[in-house]
């Protein structure tokens, strides 16, 4: 029986939902006033939200969910009995454009199972991107999930059409990748990320004639790690992230709580997705990138190297390092203020601005938008001192959310 476009879309979007990334921001500014259709650049737009709280920014689909690999955590592995379908390139192009014209999406996030060979699959994905850009003048956002085993020339071409390239590292430790995804090679995945990085670096350098080469994946590259499918603890996961950020100039590492999949492999536990753990990892990832923390500081408060699920990682760090507090809001430098629980990067910038107009008092902090319920044991202002609160034994218990909230997760 031939499948209709509707059937294929159902199968191939269902198969794509385990990819967390949906970003459509940070690419080159462009629009269609000089021809073609679409615009991009600046902050991304989330066009809808599904009841799982995730946004729909891009048409996120698989080109096909046929796959010759056998990755235990993946619903599309060759040994799974899931229904299979395959889009033609023309179908993907037309779905993207028609959705785009109705303002449903910002663009396309195309991923694929591996059919025939990695190069064949990657070549088809590149063809779709090329058709969108060249034949239809599409200026919207394109994210291609690259196949690490594909030849560097294909990735090179993909980067000319795509805003973002991603290559999923999948699991935080090489041993887990070898055990759960026997056809994937961690070194191949890393080498592919390195190639993307080098191509991006090269595209930003002017040639000897002073000409700028074509932009290569202007919105950068990202990756995704599955959390909870193997035994890795949060320290392992975050250390891997830090290495990836440093080595391959990644824009984002996405953490995806391992979610029960239909046709699950017997190799994996059928667990509830560890959503709170995923959330804490994102918080920790932010602390590593924007708040000057390092992995060991963040994972030190617990003995098993996992983040505390009850309190956020910055608060957990502050509770374990109370000697540093309270800090004087009117004297402390930016780096110190950034370490105060309840102060975000924007709050800190506002505090520094407000200090120019005079002393900052407790009420000012509230007006500025600081989360004082969290911050007050850790700060000093002319009209506020936490006194013994900072060192109180029950401080953690007081700052934890009431236990019933946790049952949500």
């Amino acid at each position, binding site marked *: 029986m031939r499948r209709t476009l509707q059937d294929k879309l159902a199968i191939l979007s269902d198969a794509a939902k385990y990819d967390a990334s949906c970003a459509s921001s940070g690419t080159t500014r462009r629009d269609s006033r000089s021809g073609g259709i679409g615009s991009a650049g600046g902050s991304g737009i989330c066009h809808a939200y599904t009841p799982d709280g995730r946004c729909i920014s891009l048409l996120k689909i698989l080109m096909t969910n046929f796959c010759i690999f056998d990755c235990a955590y993946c619903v599309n592995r060759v040994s799974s009995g899931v229904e299979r379908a395959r889009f033609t390139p023309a179908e993907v192009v037309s779905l993207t454009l028609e959705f785009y014209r109705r303002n449903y999406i910002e663009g396309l996030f195309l991923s694929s199972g591996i059919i025939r060979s990695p190069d064949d699959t990657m070549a088809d994905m590149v063809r779709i991107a090329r058709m969108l850009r060249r034949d239809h003048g599409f200026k919207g956002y394109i994210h291609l999930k690259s196949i690490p085993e594909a030849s560097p020339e294909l990735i090179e071409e993909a980067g000319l059409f795509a805003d973002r390239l991603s290559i999923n590292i999948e699991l935080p430790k090489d041993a887990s990748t070898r055990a759960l995804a026997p056809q994937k090679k961690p070194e191949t995945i890393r080498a592919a990320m390195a190639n993307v990085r080098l191509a991006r670096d090269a595209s930003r350098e002017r040639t000897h004639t002073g000409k700028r080469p074509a932009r290569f994946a202007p919105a950068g590259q990202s990756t995704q790690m599955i959390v909870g499918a193997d035994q890795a603890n949060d320290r392992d996961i975050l250390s891997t992230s*830090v290495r990836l950020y440093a080595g391959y*100039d990644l824009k984002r590492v996405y953490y995806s709580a391992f979610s*029960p999949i239909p046709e699950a492999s017997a190799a994996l536990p059928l667990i509830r997705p560890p959503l709170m753990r995923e959330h804490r990892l994102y918080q920790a990832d932010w602390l590593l990138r924007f708040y000057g923390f390092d992995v060991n500081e963040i994972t030190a408060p617990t003995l098993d190297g996992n983040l505390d699920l009850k309190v956020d990682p910055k608060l957990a760090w502050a509770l374990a390092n109370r000697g540093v507090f309270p800090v004087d809001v009117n004297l402390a430098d930016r780096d110190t203020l950034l370490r105060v629980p309840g102060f975000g990067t924007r709050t800190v910038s506002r505090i520094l601005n407000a200090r120019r107009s005079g002393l900052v008092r407790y009420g000012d902090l509230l007006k500025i938008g600081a989360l004082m319920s969290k911050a007050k044991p850790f700060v000093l202002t002319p009209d506020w001192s936490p006194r013994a609160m900072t060192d109180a034994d029950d401080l953690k218990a007081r700052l934890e959310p009431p236990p019933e909230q946790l049952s949500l997760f």
Partner: protein
Amino acid sequence: MYRIDLPELGFAERWRDATRLLLSHDIAPDAIIWRFGGGGDLFACDPLPGEVGPRRATVSRPLNDLAGSVLCHQEAEVPALLYSAFHRHQSDRRAIANPADPLTRRLERLAKAVRRDIHKMHAFVRFRELPTETSRRRFGAWFEPEHRIVEAATPFFAKRFADMDWTIATPAGVARFENGALSFHPAAQRPDVPEDACESLWATYFQNIFNPARLHLKAMQSEMPKKYWKNMPETQLIPEMLAQADRRVAAMRAAQPASPPSRASGILKRLAEGAPGSVDSLEAAADAARVCRRCGLCEAATQTVWGRGDPSAPLMIVGEQPGDAEDLSGQPFVGPAGKVLTEAMGEVGTGPVWLTNAVKHFKFTPRGKRRLHQTPSRDEVLHCRWWLDLERKFVKPRLTVALGATAAFALTGNDAPLAPRRGTIERTPDGGQVLLTWHPSYVLRLTGESAAVARRSLKVDLSLARRLVAETSG
């Protein structure tokens, strides 16, 4: 008392013109009534001054930008509030920059609400296709924003959908884009936009991209407030999706792993073929080294960096380990130290050579966006000697040059300090000749005269190597 009537369309212009005039006469905020829509002459009001007054009103860019957004807010007191901010600004320029100032805070909140509404309009307008007689496709939408944003939010659509004609109707006004020109018109009745076949595809997508195992309603509603739902077709599906979520998750859990489809075993067998065989050549050794896991370095490094050059060269040069650039590209000696070595080799005229490292994986600690080199441990060097020995076995160099202490240790087994040994020849355990010299990265670390001295020593040693190789080839 003055009274300013603001129209529904073009109110920003009107407000700015009036404000410029009133400020030039230094008229106090409480002497002005601002009203939208006009109507009923309740008060006897003074006529506005006909000419610009003596004061030159000024405004800072941040306040001006803020005003652009705040004016669109639907609250009735907004034009007056903004006028007081402009009026205060003529005598107190700093208040607007202080995030703790109450009026600044208030304006910022109002602006934020408007910007959010604009952002949501960009996100939640849903076009339906309309019939057309020309070659340009036509689309129409009905949208109910919270604030007066039809003029501020629609230029975005003009840039994005330049090759089609479209109309966005709102209760406060209509934006029409035809043949590349955007125009605004007074509000009309809610238009009847016909069904669009594409909407059922969109519904299919919306239902299937949702993961029922991860319900998080609060997150959905805070980003997609219910006030926008009525004009978004996909939101009608949400109740049913919620009702089925538990059942779908239970079904996923209950589904026992089915026996794999018949094609699986054949495919997996084909993929498993071609595993590396015995190591009987330099190429085979390189292939085997690519998946080396003898020590833990492979876990962090990108890839094995194997040697390169002439595999029948009489001279082999061994460095310490790949650096950042080598790790990314998979080629030895392509980074800054490699450049120093290549220059030195070029100057002394080194002939064919095999370039490699004592340790084949990059060892580093990440520091922000950089990776800092770390010296490999004794263990790591010893593990990796397996590969170095294989390279020496297949290349069979007549002379090997050790760059730096790590290479010297890997080749000779002697880890004594390098300085007194530099420029001398030692032996590998199997009797091969090893000439010891500085590592080029040592030259890079030094500054001034000592760097020049080290660079000269490196060159002296390399030319000695060239002579030794030439002598033994006779």
